[in-house]
């Protein structure tokens, strides 16, 4: 079937004013669509990146998060001896019992206070989590009021840079190092000695909230979990660290997704309306031209397809502009309260090629939605009558 495509493309150019409104509408929708997806993706990836597939996290049975969990020192020892736990050169099990608390610290720019996750860790914490590195300074010494802070903490909160002495838990701490975990949730945390943290907050000293274990291999999880679940001394939940952190992202990610898609769908309908208007008036203004094309021998099917192509072409231009508009968002850092951990988390938007592709697909859909009925109308133009008109 022959298509008068050149004709359509040229008319898009000639009618640029009304075309640009439709293009603008679709570009806006696609930009927002990609931005929302990038935000949800960024938030999730930040948390997922915190967990390593080779690590397991042990919490008290039934607790949904570390915040709610309790693990005693006796239990930690049992966990350390379980099969599947990796040991270092000195044959010490790679396990970090940890305490998680929330502190309120003043932010730099707004002066408002925000909730920050404090993590009391053991000296093995950095060996267990290979992705976390001390970027500057050194690690804290056990028993001394020293902290290492995530790199986001250092530049978001007042008095939290290397050498500063922030105050929480009723005492001053010295920032002795800056952590870099490559953009994961640990970059929004403050780490210090677990036992000292417990003492500072009037908590029993040998009570922890979770134990993170480095396994001999990612496949060792099954064996490790079996051993712990079968042990009558323990009632614990064992989870791959990556799965645990992914779960911690669910509430916020779902919220962004649901609200984002609602907004985007509504916008999409609005943009289709705009496209419909543009296409209908484009068709109405070109009755004579259409009739001429028909009398040149193009069938009604060709007309439908060619007008549909015109509409899709308009939509795809909009899509490309929208994607380009969303691109600078890549890496944009936002922060929000994660309801599941009850603390602030900084995350970076992630605009990835598959999200852009989804944006273009969405544009294509809008093009079809906005072009189908007008192109059917174009095909029904009565040739003789339209030609006779002025």
């Amino acid at each position, binding site marked *: 079937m022959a298509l008068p495509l050149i004709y359509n493309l040229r008319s898009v150019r000639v009618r640029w004013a009304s075309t640009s409104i439709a293009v*603008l509408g679709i570009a806006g929708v696609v930009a927002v669509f990609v*931005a929302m997806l990038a935000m949800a993706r960024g938030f999730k990836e930040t948390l997922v990146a915190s967990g390593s597939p080779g690590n397991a996290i042990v919490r008290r049975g*039934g607790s949904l998060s570390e915040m709610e969990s309790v693990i005693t020192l006796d239990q930690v020892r049992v966990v350390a001896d379980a099969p599947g736990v990796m040991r270092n050169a000195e044959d010490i099990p790679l396990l970090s019992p940890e305490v998680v608390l*929330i502190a*309120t610290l003043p932010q730099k720019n707004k002066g408002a206070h925000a909730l920050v996750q404090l993590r009391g860790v053991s000296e093995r914490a950095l060996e267990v989590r290979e992705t976390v590195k001390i970027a500057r300074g050194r690690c804290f010494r056990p028993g001394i009021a020293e902290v290492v802070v995530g790199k986001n903490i250092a530049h978001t909160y007042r008095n939290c840079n290397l050498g500063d002495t922030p105050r929480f838990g009723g005492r001053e701490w010295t920032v002795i190092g800056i952590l870099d975990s490559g953009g994961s949730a640990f970059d929004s945390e403050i780490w210090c000695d677990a036992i000292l943290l417990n003492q500072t907050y009037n908590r029993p000293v040998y009570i922890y909230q979770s134990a993170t274990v480095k396994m001999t291999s990612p496949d060792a999880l099954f064996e490790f979990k079996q051993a712990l679940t079968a042990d009558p001394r323990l009632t614990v939940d064992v989870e791959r660290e990556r799965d645990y952190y992914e779960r911690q992202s669910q509430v916020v990610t779902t*919220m962004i997704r649901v*609200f984002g898609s609602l907004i985007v769908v*509504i916008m999409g309908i609005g943009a289709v309306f705009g496209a419909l208007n543009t296409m209908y008036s484009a068709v109405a203004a070109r009755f004579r031209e259409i009739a001429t094309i028909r009398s040149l021998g193009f069938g009604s099917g060709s007309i439908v397809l060619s007008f549909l192509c015109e509409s899709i072409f308009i939509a795809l231009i909009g899509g490309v502009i929208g994607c380009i508009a969303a691109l600078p968002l890549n890496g944009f850092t*936002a922060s929000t*309260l994660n309801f599941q951990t009850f603390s602030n988390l900084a995350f970076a938007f992630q605009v990835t090629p598959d999200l852009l592709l989804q944006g273009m697909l969405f544009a294509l859909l809008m093009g079809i939605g906005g072009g189908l009925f007008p192109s059917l109308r174009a095909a029904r133009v009565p040739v003789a009558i339209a030609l006779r008109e002025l």
Partner: protein
Amino acid sequence: MRTAGRQIVKFFPFILANLFRKKTRTILTVGSFAVALFLFGLLATIDTTFTGGVEVAGADRLVVLNKSSLAQPLPFSYRDRILQIPGVKGVTFAVWFGGVYQNERNFIPIMAVDTDGFKEMYTEFAIADEQWDAFVRDREGCFVGRSTATKYGWKIGDRVPIKGTIYPGVWEFNIRGIYDGTRAEDDTTQFWFQYGYLDERKQFLKGMVGWYMVRVVRPEDDIHVAAAIDQRFANSAYETVAETEKSFLAGFVKQIGNIRLIIISVGSVVLFTLLLITGSTMAMSVRERTGELAVLKTIGFTDAAVMLLVLAESLLYAVPGALIGLALAKLFTLRGDPTGGLLPFFYLDPDRMLMGFGLALAAGIAAGIIPALLAMRLRIVEALRRV
């Protein structure tokens, strides 16, 4: 101008006929208005979700927390000591329990509460006296909010097993009462049970509570009372931080910060774009009829009358569109929270609906004013020559 106004009323059928001349375009334009206003309604609802609670907060209530950290407890003995502080009218406390029903997806905000002062503190909840008495008499009793009861199909007398996430094990409760909110924005998702039962059964942190709520005698003294409370417990093992319920909740809202800002600003941009599209449609429809408008002027319509005709037409797109959009948004929010229960506040405020309607009117006028002015200034001779 007044005669022009009278003419508008008289020529209402004429305006309508104009609207129905191009049915598709009219439907699409009214439709875009409806879509824009639906979006507005939705954004307003999202905004209330995030700021929610701040407006709900009691003006004469203070929250007293452990100073070192939100999640740290305070001793039960503080209750009587807070009551002695001048300006305090009542005090109650609660402990966050945290629990799930059946599985992790069914998370319920459960609190162990003080049976003495709790009901008096939260006067915004409609609590039947006999139900409350039954609740107080039953050690394993619980009181649940209407929306939670409806969600799980619970009724008074049911025995429900709850899996504790902070306090381990399965806890069984007898439902002794169901409370309602007195306002649409009140949170009816909560689940309360007796603090005594928790303290008896828990194995750690005995005699500790989560937070205190304090009612002050005079709301304007709240800052002083809060300072007095903090002063009272300064330099103790459990220092406190007391603040008004409003500022406590507002602190949370501030932290949600970016996401809320992003959603709201994105939505506003969209709203603007939709209105732009609508405006251009209207301009298009006026341009097409330049000749007709000239004819109207020729047969004696004044400039003002022609202008008002065009403006009225524009408003006739906006008003029904806005009404449809807002009605749909209201219906949508009545169906409940689309995230499946993650949000305690999800409702469309009537004030916001009015605001939306005002916005639509303004947009209708803004979209119509330029074509209307053009129509008014139209010179008959030139316009007729163009045809």
